[in-house]
C-alpha cells in the first residue's frame, strides 16, 4: 500500500452515488462504528442499535447526494443517528415531546454522566474525521495499532497491510505525528 493512496472520502461518496455497491460497503465500514457508538452511549441494546442503524443507513442511501461537504459525513451520520434515537425514545415515551433541541441533548437525558458521554461521542467523531484526512495506509495503521480492540500484533498488522514489520516503526511515528498536527488545526477544534 502506498503512502499517497488517500482514503479520499469524496471519491468513495462519488462511487456510491454512481451506484458502486462495494463503495457502499467501504463507506458503511467508515461510518457504522460511529452509529453504533452513539447508540451505545445512549444505552440501546444490540437489537435496538441494529434497528437504528437500518434507519440511518436508509437515510444515508436516500440523502447522500445532498451532502454538501463529503468531509462532513461523520457529523452528518452522527446527527441522523441522534435524531433516530430521539425518535425511538419518543415512541417509547421516555423523552418529552418538547422541541428539536432535545436531539442534541439526548445523551444528557439518558446517561448518568451527561457531559462526559456527550463530549466523548463528539470526540470520537472528531478523531475519526481527522483520521479520514490521512492517507489510507496511515489511517489503517493508526486504526489497527491503537483502536482495534483485538490488539493485533505487529506481524498481523504487517500481514494485513501488506508491509514488512520492520517498516511499521518509522511509518507509525510519522502517521501519529500527522494525526496530532491535524487535531491541532482549527478545523477539528480540540
Amino acid at each position: 500500500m502506498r503512502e499517497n493512496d488517500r482514503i479520499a472520502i469524496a471519491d468513495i461518496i462519488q462511487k456510491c452515488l454512481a451506484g458502486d455497491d462495494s463503495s457502499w460497503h467501504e463507506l458503511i465500514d467508515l461510518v457504522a462504528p460511529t452509529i453504533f457508538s452513539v447508540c451505545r452511549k445512549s444505552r440501546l441494546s444490540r437489537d435496538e442499535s441494529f434497528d437504528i442503524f437500518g434507519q440511518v443507513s436508509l437515510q444515508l442511501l436516500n440523502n447522500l447526494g445532498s451532502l454538501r461537504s463529503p468531509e462532513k459525513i461523520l457529523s452528518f451520520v452522527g446527527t441522523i443517528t441522534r435524531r433516530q434515537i430521539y425518535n425511538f425514545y419518543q415512541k417509547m415515551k421516555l423523552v418529552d415531546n418538547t422541541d428539536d433541541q432535545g436531539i442534541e441533548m439526548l445523551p444528557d437525558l439518558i446517561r448518568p454522566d451527561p457531559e462526559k458521554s456527550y463530549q466523548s461521542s463528539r470526540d470520537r467523531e472528531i478523531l475519526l474525521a481527522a483520521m479520514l484526512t490521512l492517507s489510507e495506509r496511515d489511517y489503517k495503521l493508526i486504526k489497527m495499532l491503537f483502536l482495534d480492540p483485538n490488539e493485533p500484533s505487529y506481524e498481523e498488522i504487517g500481514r494485513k497491510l501488506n508491509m514488512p514489520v520492520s517498516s511499521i516503526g518509522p511509518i507509525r511515528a510519522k502517521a501519529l505525528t500527522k494525526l496530532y498536527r491535524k487535531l491541532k488545526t482549527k478545523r477539528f477544534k480540540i
Partner: protein
Amino acid sequence: MSTHKKELEQLIKYLRGELSSEDAESVKRTIATDPTMRKLVAMIDDSKEGLAAIDWEKMQSPVHSLLDLQLKQIKSSRKTGGGRRGITTYDSKLLPLPDGVRPAEVDTRRLKFQIDDGQLEISLYPISPNSYELIGMLSGIEGDMEFKVELIEKGKAEGKRSKLTESTNQFGLFRFPRVPEGSYELKLKKGRSVFAGLQLDL
C-alpha cells in the same frame, strides 16, 4: 508534541500498553504538559473502548447484509417505478445470536420496513416447521390506517400462486393466521389501488 523520536516512540508504546508501569508514569507526565496530546490520548482510549463495546467484528456482517438488502430493494423500486415500496430497516434474522445463547427451534422474527414517512413492523411466529403466524402493524402513515393487505406468492406460474388477503383494523393492525414459507409480495391496498408494496421472504 515534541517530535523527538524517543518521546514519540515512548508514546506509541504507551498507547499499545507495551511499557512498564514506571515508564508509563513517565509518559503520563509528558502527556500532562501538552493539552492536544492529552486530548489525543483520551480520544484514542475512549474510541478503543467504544469499538470494543460495540463488537464491530460481529456486527459487520449483519450490517453489510442489511445494506445489500436495502440497495437491492431501492434499485428494484426504481426499476418498477411508481408506487411506494417498503424498504427493510430491520430484520432480526440477520443478527447473530448473542454469545452463549443456543438457537431455539421455535423462534420469532421481527422485521421493519420504511414506507415514506411511515413504518410497517412485522412479527413472525412459527406455528409449524414451515409456516408462520404473521402480525403486522402500520404506524406513521398519514390518513386513515385501514387497508386491504394482500400476500401474493412469488416465483410460481400465474394461477398457481397463492394469494392471502386480510384487512387492517383502524389502528393499522393485521394478522395472517398461517403463512407457508416462501417469497411474497405484500401489498397494501385502498380499494383497487395499491398504496405500497414490499417483498417479504419467509
